[in-house]
Every structure is written in C-alpha cells, then in structure tokens.
C-alpha cells in the first residue's frame, strides 16, 4: 500500500531535492578550486626545477631553497594579511570594513556553513606564491635568501593583492572607474611582479662577471634541460592558475569572469593554447635559443591572459607571436641598460603583462561590463597598465634600496665567488661530480659479503 501523494508531500520532496542539489553544487565549487590549487602547485615545482637549472651548479641549491621557503612564508603571511588586503582596499589606499578576512575572524577557519572562504583563500594564496616566485628567478646567484624572503612576502602577500583589490575585486576602483579587464591576471600578477623585479634588480646589481668592459656575457645555466622541463611544468600549472581565475557560480548563472561577465572554460581553453603556441613561435624566431623558446610559451599565455575570454583564437595566436618577438627585444634592451635579469622575468612577465593589459583596450575596446561599470576602453586599459607597472616598481625599488643600505640585500663577494651553496646552504647539489670513477665509495656496499668489505666503514675519498 503506498502513501497518499499530496501537494504538500510533493512540495516537501521537491525542497529536499533542491537542498541536495544546492549542497552538491556548493561541493562542486569547492572541488573545482581545490584541484585548481593543487595544479598550481605544479607552477612551484616548475619554478624550482627551472631556477635550479638556470643557476650555475655552485648556486643550484640556493636557488632551490629560496623557492621552497618562498612558499613557506607567503602562505602564512597571506593568511595574516593578504586576504584582508584584498577585501579591504578595493577603493584605493583607504580600507573598508573587512573584519571577516582578518586571521582572528570566525570566517578564517573550518566552518561547515561556509564552503567558499577557505577554498578561495587557498587559490589566492597560491596566486600570491606564484607572484612572489616570479621575482625569484631574476635574482638568482647573488641575492641573500633572507632579503629574497622579505621581498617576496611584500610582493606575494601585499603588493600584488592590493593590485588584485583594485583590478579584480567586484568593487575595485579600476573596474568601477575605468572598466578594467584583466581576467587572466596579466596586470595584477605578471606586470606587478615583473616591474617589482625590475626595481629590485636595479639595486641588486648584476652577477659578478655578467658584464665585462660593459659587454654582456652569457652565464650559461648548469642544466638547460632542467630549465626546459621546469618551464613546461609551469605551463601545466598555468591551467590551474587560469582555472582559478574563472568564477564557478551557484544557481543557474554558470561560469563568469571575475567581473561577472559571462564566459566559460571553452573560451579560456581556445586562447590559452593558441597563446601558448604563438609565444613559442615568436621567441623561437627571435632567438632560436631553447631557453627562450620554452619561455615563449609563458610569454604567449601572459600576452593573451588579460583578454582570454574575449579574443578570437587566431588573434590570440598572432598577439602571442608578436609579443614573443617583442619580449625578446625588451630583454635585449634591458641587458643593454646593464640590468642582469637571469631568466628574463622582467620581459616575460612585466613587459608582456603590461602590454597585454593595454592590448585588451586595442582589440576588445567597446566590450560592455555589467553592474554599472564602464565599458572597456583603450584609455582605461593603458592607464591601468601603467598603474600596475608603478604599483610593482615603486615598492620593489624602495624596499630593495632600504635592504641595500642596510647591507642586507646581496651576498658577500667571497660567497659569490665560492658559491652560495657551499657558504650558506652547506650542501652540494652534485657531490659525486668530481669523484673519479676508480675511487672507493664513501658509502658501504650493502650487497658485498664480509670478505669483500668486512668492516663496512666509511673510506675517505681517494684513500
């Protein structure tokens, strides 16, 4: 015998279904950003490989430890004040009430009724770590680890997220006043980080031997293959990064950009891949150099990231090719000016990111915004691009200038000669590199019988 179906029972069943659906939708949002965050970790694996490879072997571990510690300091400092800066400063330099984003707020911890804050905080913390790591490669082989950590905390947990509050927040003044459009963070992450890096490089100076009688010398990476693999890992991680830039909405809205305009992952997929391919071609034509060819993939993605939702894929490809050529020109210009950027970060991220923001105004000007924000214009994008560059450059220059005056910025000359690994890290990346094949091993052979190696004692090399 079945229960009688009434209007009330149908309504109750519908409400139960609705609640279940909404719960699962909220969980899907969490799942999406969880995996974006995880994939972004690959960016850091990539930075680790590529910067260690780009260093000479005497500095390889110093480059690596710098990257690992960058994550370790940016994550807690982004918890302490980064998330609050994003929520408090959409209007400029005067904070609005954002008490819920402070680290002693009930919102900043496990809460069964809040399925958004933690996962968005995590994604933004990893954006911050990526931003802080952009500085890392440019300054290898002569910056003190401590100075780098101070600088990367400012960049990764304060400066870029202030740019994010201005240009990414729904109430950010760059959006509400200028119609700013930068969906893939060409400006708020890459331009800011690149020009912050330029400010630091001016004070840090070149690696010893980089310029001889004013002529720039090539300081070869100790492992070019590792740098190439590292760069490809960064590209992989970019899919998490760019996925984290899109908004997974509840209800029937679907995907939107961070500016609440409609888009979808298909749009991002078209232009991310076309930009990647175009950038490689541009940098290959400009240099025929493996390092720059692979860096071209980054240039290509960054060059179209600001308008990832708007460009036709063929246009994205052409922009990326041209920006690949232009980024190399800019890198050469910087070198002529006496700037030693060991990995081309200022050109790849700063220059490309800044131009990418302006290009949205060129190619997508007139695109409407929503919620009363003005349409996209070239003037608005160009103004914002300059603001992003200055927002990075001024603190980068200022803080590194202060560290230089305190003699805290650069390693000692002897340390630079010997290698930071031996002096500061106290480890060797390739300890067996100079051991002749015929030398007795320091390590006991566990498979040898007692007659072969009876005492199993460590034997000094060459003894």
């Amino acid at each position, binding site marked *: 015998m079945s229960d009688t179906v009434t209007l009330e029972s149908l309504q109750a069943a519908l409400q139960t279904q609705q609640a279940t659906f909404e719960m699962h939708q909220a969980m899907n949002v969490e799942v999406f950003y969880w995996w974006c965050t995880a994939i972004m970790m690959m960016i850091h694996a990539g930075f680790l490989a590529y910067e260690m490879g780009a260093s000479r072997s005497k500095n390889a571990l110093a480059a690596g430890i710098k990257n690992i*510690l960058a994550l*370790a*300091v940016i994550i*807690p*400092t982004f*918890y*302490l004040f980064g998330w609050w800066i994003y929520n408090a400063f959409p209007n400029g330099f005067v904070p609005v009430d954002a008490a819920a984003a402070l*680290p*002693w*707020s*009930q*919102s900043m*911890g*496990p*809460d*069964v*009724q*809040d399925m958004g804050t933690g996962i968005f905080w995590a994604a933004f913390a990893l954006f911050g770590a990526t931003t802080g790591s952009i500085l890392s490669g440019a300054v290898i082989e002569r910056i*003190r*680890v*401590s100075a780098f*950590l*101070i600088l990367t*905390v400012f960049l990764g947990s304060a400066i870029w997220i202030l740019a994010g509050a201005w240009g990414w927040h729904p109430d950010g003044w760059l959006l509400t006043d200028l119609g700013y459009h930068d969906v893939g963070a060409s400006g708020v992450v890459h331009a800011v980080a690149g020009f912050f890096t330029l400010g630091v490089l001016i004070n840090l100076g070149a690696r010893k031997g980089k310029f001889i009688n004013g002529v720039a010398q090539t300081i070869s990476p100790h492992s070019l293959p590792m740098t190439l693999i590292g760069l490809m890992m960064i590209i992989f991680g970019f899919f998490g990064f760019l996925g984290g830039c899109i908004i997974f909405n509840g209800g029937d809205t679907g995907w939107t950009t961070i500016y609440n305009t409609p888009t979808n992952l298909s749009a991002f997929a078209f232009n991310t891949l076309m930009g990647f391919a175009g950038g490689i071609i541009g940098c290959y034509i400009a240099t025929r150099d493996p390092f720059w060819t692979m860096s071209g993939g980054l240039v290509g993605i960054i060059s179209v990231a600001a308008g990832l939702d708007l460009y036709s894929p063929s246009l994205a490809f052409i922009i990326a090719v041209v920006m690949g050529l232009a980024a190399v020109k800019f890198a050469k210009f910087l070198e002529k000016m006496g700037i030693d950027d060991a990995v081309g970060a200022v050109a790849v991220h700063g220059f490309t990111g800044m131009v990418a923001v302006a290009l949205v105004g060129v190619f997508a000007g007139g695109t409407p915004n929503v919620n009363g924000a003005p349409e996209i214009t070239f003037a608005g994008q160009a103004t914002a691009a300059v603001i992003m560059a200055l927002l990075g450059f001024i603190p980068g220059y200022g803080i590194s200038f202060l560290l230089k005056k305190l003699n*805290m910025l650069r*390693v*000692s000359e*002897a*340390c630079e000669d*010997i290698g930071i690994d031996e*002096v*500061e890290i*106290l480890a060797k990346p390739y300890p067996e590199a100079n051991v002749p094949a015929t030398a007795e091993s320091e390590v006991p052979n566990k498979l040898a019988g007692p007659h072969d190696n009876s005492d199993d004692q460590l034997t000094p090399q060459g003894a």
Partner: protein
Amino acid sequence: MGSSITTWENVAAYFTFADNPAALVLFALGVTGIVAGLIGYIVKHENEAFKQHK
C-alpha cells in the same frame, strides 16, 4: 580544552578557539613571530657564514 562547540547541532565555525578571539589573536601573533623569527634566523646564519668565508 580548545573546542568551540559542545554539539554538532546548528554548527557553523567549529574550529578550536573559534569562540575565543583573544586566543586567535595570540595565535596570529605566534604565526607572525615564527615567520619574522625565521627570517631573522637566516640573516644571522648568513652573517656568520659570510664572516667565515671572507
């Protein structure tokens, strides 16, 4: 001792000391101290290492 809940009924923020802002401020200061201390520790180590390799 740190639990902020006594039941799972109608729970929202349930993490340890969620109901004790003073404790959360103290923990935040602790995090600040550890990060600053780490950097200070590295500065000290670098100064000593550079002295040994003049």
